[in-house]
């Protein structure tokens, strides 16, 4: 029997890898996928805590996270496609228009 603590450790590792991906990569699509990785790590934490406490609340919260993630991906990818249509390049280094 594996205790929930190991699930928490695993999700901490996955979250950190996702953070590294967000900071280190140049392709906005990969950055988006790293964010998905981080969301998944958090979901795993929710489920592990729900299991430890014996309550379904954690799973209900994961349901909401999934819905928000789906909406976020759809809008984010649409923005990326719109930017690509405008500039025909795709690197986060070029996206400095909103920097002051």
């Amino acid at each position: 029997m594996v205790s929930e603590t190991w699930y928490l450790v695993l999700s901490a590792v996955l979250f950190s890898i996702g953070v590294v991906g967000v900071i280190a990569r140049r392709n906005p699509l990969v950055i988006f996928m790293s964010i998905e990785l981080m969301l998944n790590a958090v979901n795993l934490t929710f489920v592990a805590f729900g299991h430890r406490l014996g309550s379904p609340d954690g799973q209900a919260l994961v349901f909401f996270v999934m819905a928000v993630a789906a909406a976020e991906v759809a809008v984010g990818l649409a923005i990326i496609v719109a930017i690509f249509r405008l500039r025909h390049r795709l690197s986060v280094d070029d996206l400095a228009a909103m920097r002051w």
Partner: protein
Amino acid sequence: MSVAAFALLALMAVGSALGLVLKRNAIHGALFLVVNLGTVAALYLSLRAEFLAAAQVIVYAGAIMVLFVFAIMVLIPGKEETGPDPRRPYRLLALPVGAGLLVELAAIVASSGGTTRPPAPGPPGGVEAIGRLLFTDYLFPFEMTSVLLLAAMVGVLLLARRRAD
């Protein structure tokens, strides 16, 4: 869940996450992410969250990843990260940041213990318990989710529309 099975799944999850971050080609990263989502679904199963395991496969590995692969195919990937990187020193800062975060999270997990609480009184409930919860305690957030999805749909249509001019 046996320790060996958990170790195997954890190894697959971490390995595929590293693959996503380290592989230069975005489509390889997407496939690694699919593997990662699948292993997380298996971990959900091991935590008695059957509904979420199914939803994970359908929503994440199904819908969201198809969207990603579509976007990668449309946007001609792989060219944007081949040239010399003028900001390489800054990007390498990601490693200490990630390592520091990992140490911090591990310290939190270690300090919270986890052996203090008695084992859960049983499975946290299947689809029925979650559905009951969603339509009673979480009814308002649930309805807001539908509004959010509608807003996202309208927003995407607006963004993806070709300009008339």
